[in-house]
């Protein structure tokens, strides 16, 4: 590991905060106003808070539930001033996300197979590049499978990532059968002794039935080599996505049985408030789906494990480095 990388790793929180600070925008503004001068909590404060939540893509359902919980406590005089309200909000939001936190762990399956799926343009290939680097640093031997055989130059893009990281890429030509590429890769990894296979797939909109069938086929074919494979199926979500993400989670889960989520592009002005909507819906359904990573920048080191406390604190503009993260 280079010195620069060490340094980056050391200032993880700064980077996450830097990334998220830009995304504070609306929610921080709304909540910032709440914090100013211990105002009494009245209707207009609550309305402001509701607006802030909606502007962060928290969604109508989840926002209504959050507001109902907080309003009830305000009525019971449990939250008399805005400081108390703010603290209650932070706790509530963290509690919502806690079920989504689970570290990404590679078992000793030979090889451990990870699929990356999602709609077009969310950053699947880039995420694979970054995760490959991360796993290498943990001492894993990684093989990449260029399963996106549809998009022009997707194979080349993955190969560039392979070169950067010194990782082999199993690929066929554009237009080849995606399932066969991934199958080859898993076989090759077993033969060459690679511990992890990261398999790219073409971006697809969840409403396209035939493309979702193709995903099922990839799973079917790979499970012939190993009953347990794929060991992880990660849905990659763009931080800027709106309520359509709920449908993405649902449809991809129905088609290929997801095991986790990755949020990309959190370094922009998008706030990924959709995570609360997703958490809210998953809870209702009794379904558990962890968020393994968040992407907070363009460089290889910018893929970070998801930490609900830090995420909410950064969103609410609390001082992370001051150690307030509960």
């Amino acid at each position, binding site marked *: 590991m280079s010195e620069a990388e060490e340094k980056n790793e050391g200032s993880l929180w700064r980077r996450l905060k830097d990334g998220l600070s*830009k995304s504070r*925008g*609306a929610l921080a503004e709304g909540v910032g106003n709440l914090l100013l001068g211990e105002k009494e909590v009245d209707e207009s404060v609550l309305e402001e808070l509701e*607006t802030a939540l*909606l*502007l*962060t*893509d928290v*969604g*109508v359902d989840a926002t209504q539930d959050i507001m109902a919980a907080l309003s009830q406590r305000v009525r019971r005089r449990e939250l008399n001033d805005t400081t108390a309200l703010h603290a209650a909000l932070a706790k509530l939001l963290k509690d919502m996300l806690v079920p989504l936190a689970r570290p990404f762990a590679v078992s000793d399956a030979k090889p451990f197979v990870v699929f990356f799926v999602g*709609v*077009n*343009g*969310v*950053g699947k290939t880039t995420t694979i590049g970054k995760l490959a680097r991360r796993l290498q640093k943990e001492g894993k031997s990684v093989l990449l499978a260029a399963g996106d055989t*549809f*998009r*022009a*130059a*997707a194979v*080349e*893009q993955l*190969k*560039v*990532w392979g070169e950067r990281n010194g990782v082999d890429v199993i690929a066929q030509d*554009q237009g080849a059968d995606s399932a066969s590429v991934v199958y080859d890769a898993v076989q090759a990894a077993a033969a060459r002794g690679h511990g992890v296979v990261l398999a790219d797939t073409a971006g697809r*909109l*969840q*409403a*396209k*039935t*035939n493309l979702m069938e193709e995903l099922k086929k990839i799973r079917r074919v790979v499970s012939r080599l190993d009953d347990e494979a794929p060991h992880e199926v990660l849905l990659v979500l*763009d*931080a*800027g*996505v*709106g*309520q*359509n*993400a709920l*449908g993405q989670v649902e449809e991809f889960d129905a088609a290929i049985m997801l095991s986790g989520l990755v949020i990309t*592009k959190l*370094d*922009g*002005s*998008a*706030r990924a*408030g*959709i995570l609360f909507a997703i958490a809210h819906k998953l809870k209702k359904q009794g379904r558990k789906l962890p968020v393994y990573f968040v992407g907070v920048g363009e460089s290889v080191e910018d893929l970070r494990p998801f930490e609900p406390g830090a995420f909410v604190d950064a969103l609410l503009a609390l001082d992370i480095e001051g150690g307030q993260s509960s």
Partner: protein
Amino acid sequence: MFDSLSDRLTQTLRGISGKARLTEENVADALRDVRMALLEADVALPVVREFIEKVKTAALGTVVGTQLNPGEAFVKIVHAQLVAVMGEANDGLNLATTPPAVVLMAGLQGAGKTTTVAKLARYLQERDKKKVAVVSADVYRPAAIDQLETLAGEVGASFIASSQDEAPLAIAERAIEEAKKQFADVLIIDTAGRLAIDEGMMNEIRTLQAGVRPIETLFVVDAMTGQDAANTARAFNDVLELTGVVLAKADGDARGGAALSVRHITGKPVKFLGMGEKSDALEPFHPDRLASRILGMGDVLSLIEEAERKVDKKKAQKLARKLSRGRKFDLEDFRDQLQQMASMGGVANMLEKMPGMNQLPQGAQAQLDDGRFKQMSVIIDSMTPHERRFPGVITGSRKQRIARGSGMAVPDVNRLLKQHKQVQKMMKKVTRKGGMQKMMRGMQGAHPPPPGARR
């Protein structure tokens, strides 16, 4: 796209249609539903607020008891406001300048810029008979330039090479010279995706725009974007002189509220919709039609335009002549029809534009799989020419042979023959005088009328 928003509004408005008059109370109910629906469709909150205010003002001022009933009047108001937010009429590209007309693309990472470049090149070549050159100034994303090269090859546009070692402005300037030499009418410049808050990158594209002075600068936005669409659009609009917007990935089930937000915030027209992965899947954006579609009134105009463009006219005329001479609609004709349907983007695409079709259950819509039409073509392919012309001769053993030849089962063959008979019957009606009108009336009766439609 817009399915759910349209469902919601249709539902809400249906409730109001049943009431005798517009009261402040029932308008408030409907407005709350409209607000929720718009928020769930990811329309930016400030835009929703303004929209609701306008609808409310207009609705409460409406005198009940004129030509329209209260429900219809309300639909009309919402429709008019939707159109107003999305822009009055379709704006095409402005290419009236000394060639090459330079078109610059801008947007976030993964919005769909490169795909849109290829689609736009094809669109301008096929519809406007322009000679189009493309160049990539994306020197950051691995293989971005390769991607454009491949796509340019697919759509037959001239690809001007560039490399990651060059500066974007240098690439663009060189490309303009090159395009002049090639006598290209249009040069489309692809750029790297960038975050609106990345000052360095935003400066880069500002410099690029100032340097090449494009006649069109198109902001590409993902139809699935949430509330951030408003922030991003504002930031790009502040830095660049945008001339229009392309809504990419609008063929999914995203409700596409981003279109309303971006239009409202930038004041720039949405010019195109990206409607699929293939390079011909770019459609001009028609605000009035989309507003109708949102309200469940269908988009028949687009459908007709598409049919005119894609249907093989010679074949159609030949068929018309044949039928008018009293000849039968045989299996060869049936196969032609199936193939033309496929070339129009398939049944699902057509249905999406038909009035009332969004009221079909989702499951039923998914079943209208275009794979089935391919299967039907294959079955017909496995017949002898004689069988195709005279389907009556197809008996038991012939059916078995056809089924084996096409990899289907005999019941599939039976189904195909039955469907052919039905279509044949319909064709007979159409070719009779006034048959078409009668059939259309019949179709209308089959579906619940769209809200506000006058019977």
